[in-house]
């Protein structure tokens, strides 16, 4: 499949892209994504026919209450999980029916993840944690460069236990971006942080988005963050309830909670 076919395959109304980078094509698309978890006797409908597309270079914030399906959605587009039905593509990678090996390859080559609990390897220093990823990537930046981007060049040789929460999260971001991913997926990246530290982390994210044009999806409970996005996707009951487009974006430094 070539990029030209994308538009033809898109379902639903074209997304409003007023403030998104102009002239870009959708890199991420989903159609009718449905996920049902079976927990014993009970079936839980986590995603209920979600259609979505994001263009290259977009910075989207995903809002929604617990259980609204936003994390399930992120996991599927990140190649951590597969849908019960529906389709999802990253460029020409079919994600819905991909096997374990193809998903691993997809994550390795294209996706960077940032989680609420930083998930750094405790026995590796900041630099080594980043190196962990650059070693297996095709066109990585140098670990020092990635850490410099998140403002941690002076803490490179510290172990996670010697870093503050915000610093650890920035190491996690450096680790996620060091491979120059096409897609940066963040699940509650500031959830464990105070406002001031959280802002530093958000600045790192917007900076990466701006400098490298990395398509970025950020899940949050924190409504205050919405201002820094191109688009705000609101999840409710396993569906996308609404999509808002910010005509003007706020810099991360301008927000607080």
């Amino acid at each position, binding site marked *: 499949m070539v990029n030209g076919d994308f538009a033809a395959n898109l379902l639903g109304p074209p997304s409003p892209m007023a403030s998104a980078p102009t002239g870009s094509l959708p890199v991420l698309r989903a159609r009718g994504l449905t996920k049902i978890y079976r927990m014993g006797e009970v079936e839980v409908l986590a995603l209920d026919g979600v259609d979505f597309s994001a263009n290259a270079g977009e910075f989207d914030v995903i809002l929604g209450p617990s259980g609204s399906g936003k*994390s399930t959605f992120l*996991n599927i587009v*990140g190649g*951590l*999980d597969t849908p019960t039905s529906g389709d999802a593509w990253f460029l020409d990678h079919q994600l819905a029916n991909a096997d*374990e*090996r193809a998903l*691993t*390859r997809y*994550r*390795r*080559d294209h*996706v960077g*993840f940032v*989680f*609420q*609990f930083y*998930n*750094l*390897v*405790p*026995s*590796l*220093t900041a630099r*080594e*944690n980043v*190196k*962990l*990823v650059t*070693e*297996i990537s095709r066109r990585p930046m140098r670990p020092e460069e990635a850490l410099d981007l998140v403002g941690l060049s002076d803490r490179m*040789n510290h*172990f*996670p*236990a*010697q870093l503050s929460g915000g610093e650890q999260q920035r190491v996690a971001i450096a*680790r996620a971006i060091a*491979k120059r991913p096409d897609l940066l997926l963040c*699940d509650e990246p500031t959830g464990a942080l105070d406002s001031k530290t959280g802002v530093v982390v958000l600045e790192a994210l917007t900076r990466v988005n701006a400098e490298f044009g990395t398509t970025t999806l950020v899940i949050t409970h924190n409504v205050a963050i919405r201002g820094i996005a191109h688009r705000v996707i609101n999840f409710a009951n396993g569906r996308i309830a609404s999509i808002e487009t910010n005509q003007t974006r706020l810099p991360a430094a301008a927000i607080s909670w």
Partner: protein
Amino acid sequence: MHALLLKLLRELRRLWAQVASIALVMAAGVATLIIGIGTYQSLAQTRAEYYANHNFADIFVSLARAPRSLLNEIGAIDGVLAVDGRILRLAPADIEGLEEPASVLLISLPDGAQALNKLYLRSGRLPELGRGTEAVVSEVFAKARDLIPGSRLDVVMNGTLRAVTITGIALSPEYIYAMTPGEVMPSEGRFGVLWVPADLLAATYDLQGAFNTVSLKLLPGASPATIIADVDQLLAPYGGQGAYGRDQQTSHTFLDAELTQLRGMSAVLPPIFLLVAAFLVNMTLTRLIALEREQIGLLKALGYSSLAIAWHYVEFVLLISILGTAAGYGFGIWAGNGLTVLYAQYYSFPVLVFSRDPVLYVIAAAITIGAAVLGAISAVRKAAWLPPAVAMLPAAPPVYRQLLRGRNPIVVDAPQTWIIIARHLLHWPWRTAGGVVGMALAAAILVGSLWSIGAINYMVDYTFNRTERQDATISFLGPRPAAALYEVARLPGVMAAEPFRTVGIEIRSGHVSRRVGLSAYAATNDQTRLLDAHLGRIALPEQGLIISRTLARVLGVRPGDTVEVKPLEGDRRVRLVTVHGLVEGYLGLAAYMDLNALHEMLDRMPLISGVNVEIDESRHSDLFAALKATPALGMISLRSVALDRFRQTMAQNMFVMIGVLVAMAGVIAFGVVYNLARISLSEQGREMASLRVLGFSRGEVSMLLLAEIAVVTLLAQPLGWILGYWLALAMVSSFSSEIFTMPLVLGPEVFVYSTGVVIAAAALSGFIVRRRIDRLDMIAVLKTRE
């Protein structure tokens, strides 16, 4: 406490695989203890009762011939309780279905009750006079040759062929381990004991009113040494060959050596298992407590005392120990009984006493539980006494250190995954060391036992290919003139014949003396060779002795020293003879001399005891037929038969032993690796999930754990080899006795096999844990705070 108990049981169920692998190690320890000590006790008890019920004598002596009236004098010696004079004769026998001639030991059976060494009649009846030649036969021989009451066999008694009718099958405490005199393995099927009425035997061998063997039973507390001296003095004029105690009675000493080995095994193996079990308990519990730290805080906040919480975890360990002990009891009793029965078949016991001191079970349980609780204490101590507020907080994250403080002198850019593995192993140095030691012990158990196969092969090669290279030995029934050599050389199929002479001697240096067989060969002899420690050939000196290294050690002599030699037959004057050299020899105390030198020393006409022959393979049958036709010539023992039998017996014993040891070492190796891996997975599950998210494949993530296992396993090998070497050394010295020494032959294959078994067990547990990694739920792990 009810809710805590419920928690305990659920915990046990959740961790069942780890619990089972630890319990299995404990079970192996308990089982080896019960098998070893239990079988030892059963056999020792069986033997003691057998000896007591059948009046097994304390002192034995052979002589040329003495009148029965002398028995009263012997009985009058202070300290002698009972005395029995018998006639013993070795005789060739012709057995249906056996090509080569066999031999039987004829023993006189008194008219009335036996005073000593009483028979146990398994079936049939005792022989009677006047009904032809009747005899009772030893059970092992009867079984091997399908002899039943009513069977017949031909025995050459004093030169005359006699058809002997078997009337019964019997056992004797004297022949629990029955061997052809001069051989080293029980030769079932080719050597048997026949008990014949005394009068018949006396008439046949012209020994009416006389005897040629005496057995004595001593009063409790009597000194055997002084009585032996008195007996020797009394019997000297009658060709007495020197009295000896049970410690030199063949059957007794062989059985004793076996029992000593059994006890040795029970002393070495169980502590190894218990040590490993204690380590596994400690490791597992430490992790469990780390995971339950917040629960401990909560319980304390709810009002549970530190002691109650500590007891909760100790109970966990107790339950594992009880499981392990119970499994060990079960397996130990089953296998122990099996082994006892096996021993009873190998030896000849009339009845088996399955004796197990209940104390043994108590001890086994106590030390198993003790070791486990000891392993638990340090794990429990820290956590149970934390203040609740502290315990409820998550533990401080582990602080790792950079290797070499970040300065890497060799500037190797190691992959980060290697660094993770190295730092994780070094972060828990004691646990890693414990794992290495545990795996090393598994390898050591194997090295420490598998060496014996190589050693036995070496001994076979040494004995049959290098030193005793003759195809067969023809032993005369008594010494014959040297010209008898030509009689043998003329037999069909005999290609080469070399004479030898064996004489019983008492060899003495200072106050140490031993009765040994002195073998003499002609200087030109080529079939039988004497070798030194480096397998170099030792030529027999024209004068003087060559003695075995063991004998030299016992006597405390070195080449060049002089020893006193007193022949036990013929002219018994004491001679002073120089020891010229030492020979390596694994069986018994031995002395060698040149045939002419011996003739000179004994100062009499040249006599020989037998001839070693080289045989034309294709003419075996002719030779056997000729030998059967001239039974007066003597008995033949074939090297190939001896070798086959030896290999067969060994293979049988070895197969069982190796199976058991491989299983046991496997249990240890599996237990150690499985628990290490499970704990490592529990600690690093989060990192592994992170790596998966970052795009590492399942295989790459599994490497984190498998490489850790591999490092521990490989580090353990050299240590295991060294420990195994020590274990083998300890076993060699515990096996060594005057009648038997084993060479410590450790070929590379021993290390290869041992390491192979350990690696296989490690790989199996690695494979099982790997499947858990494959099922790792990345999302669930990453969304939760540790």
